[in-house]
């Protein structure tokens, strides 16, 4: 019984991948469960396949060193790199590290800001995809237990 179960999954899986691959940019991320992945490596794998991740100092990744409140952490990703098509924000220690993916159209500037939840102190990563290459920079964000105690 077990074998034909896995065979049926295999066939269905093949069909699904074919359909999903045709989606543009971030929709591909959504469809392939990048948001469901619970480790950064699997997020990166799903988003960028086996493209090399190149550390870059050309990405401005503004994130507080110590978050006032982990529920609302202001984050900005901006870069001068040309031809950017996608920006992603990943928080390693979050249950689902992938927070947000932005598809940047040609007439948009590669400079986005939002506010994200950070569960606990973590390495935060900003990925920038441009012309078939993926650049990344990291920041440390500490999250403290709020309140004066007592």
């Amino acid at each position, binding site marked *: 019984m077990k074998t034909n179960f896995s065979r049926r999954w295999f066939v269905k899986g093949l069909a699904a991948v074919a359909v999903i691959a045709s989606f543009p940019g971030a929709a591909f991320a959504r469809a392939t469960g990048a948001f469901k992945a619970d480790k950064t490596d699997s997020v990166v794998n799903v988003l960028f396949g086996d493209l090399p991740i190149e550390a870059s100092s050309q990405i401005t990744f503004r994130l507080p060193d110590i978050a006032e409140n982990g529920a*609302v952490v202001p984050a900005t990703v901006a870069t001068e790199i040309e031809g950017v098509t996608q920006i992603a924000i990943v928080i390693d220690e979050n249950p689902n590290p992938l927070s947000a993916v932005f598809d940047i159209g040609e007439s948009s500037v590669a400079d986005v800001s939002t506010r994200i939840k950070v569960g606990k102190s973590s390495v935060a990563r900003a990925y920038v995809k441009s012309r078939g290459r993926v650049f990344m920079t990291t920041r440390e964000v500490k999250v403290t237990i709020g309140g004066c105690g007592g």
Partner: protein
Amino acid sequence: MIRGTVCLVALLAGAGSASADPESDRQALARYFEQRFPDVEVAAHIDGAYALNAQTREQWLAMEDFPPYEFSVDDGEVLFGASFKDGSGYQDCFGDGNVKAHFPYFDLKEQSVVTLELAINDCRVASGEEPLAYDGEDIALLSAYMAFTSRDSVIDIEVPPEGLAAYEEGKQYYYSRRGQLNFSCSHCHMQMSGMKLRAETLSATIGHVTHWPVYRLKWQEIGPLHRRFKECNEQVGAEGLEYQSETYRNLEYFLTYMSQGLPLNGPASRK
């Protein structure tokens, strides 16, 4: 001429001693913080802890860029504009809402401190409406809108002789140790202001009331000053009191006079 000087001397002597003279209390407190934070303008304390910690200030400014309390101000505007069953409305009591600079005041008839929240309910009851719950959302939204319309007007309240007792009670409450941790408000907000309790930078007494109601990220909603009083009480192990209880109104009365002359900058976001 002699009689004049004698009475003047008596007056000065009186002011020097423990008599409750709000203005000299305020000046003494302002001097205290000028000495404690020489490079921080007294008026800068209206930003609370964000006047004393550059790193957290940066995050706060990012929040204030498009703050989450804007929805509360919009909703408050709708509530403020609604008319009562008898056709009148809040405008008849508060005009365009820019009145917060004169609250709280001491009501001679009631012989008690009237805060903006009390005045909102007085206005409703005068038109036959049900008073709002002081820990409810509507009153927070209404005071958020009125705080917004009162922005930049300067706090200008009075402590008439009849109101001195209430002012003095508020002052005593502020300086008295309380709760199992045995702290008074002044221990954290004067002697330890600018320092940290765990990750919290402690704000100064002056400027404490200028920016309420506040959207605390912790609450994920906007909340009144008395909610913070109650929370602070409980953090030192003291029993929190009811919103708009006489003790909290007197405390607000004292604290507001300590910020006399400072511009209002509410509502505001906080951590």
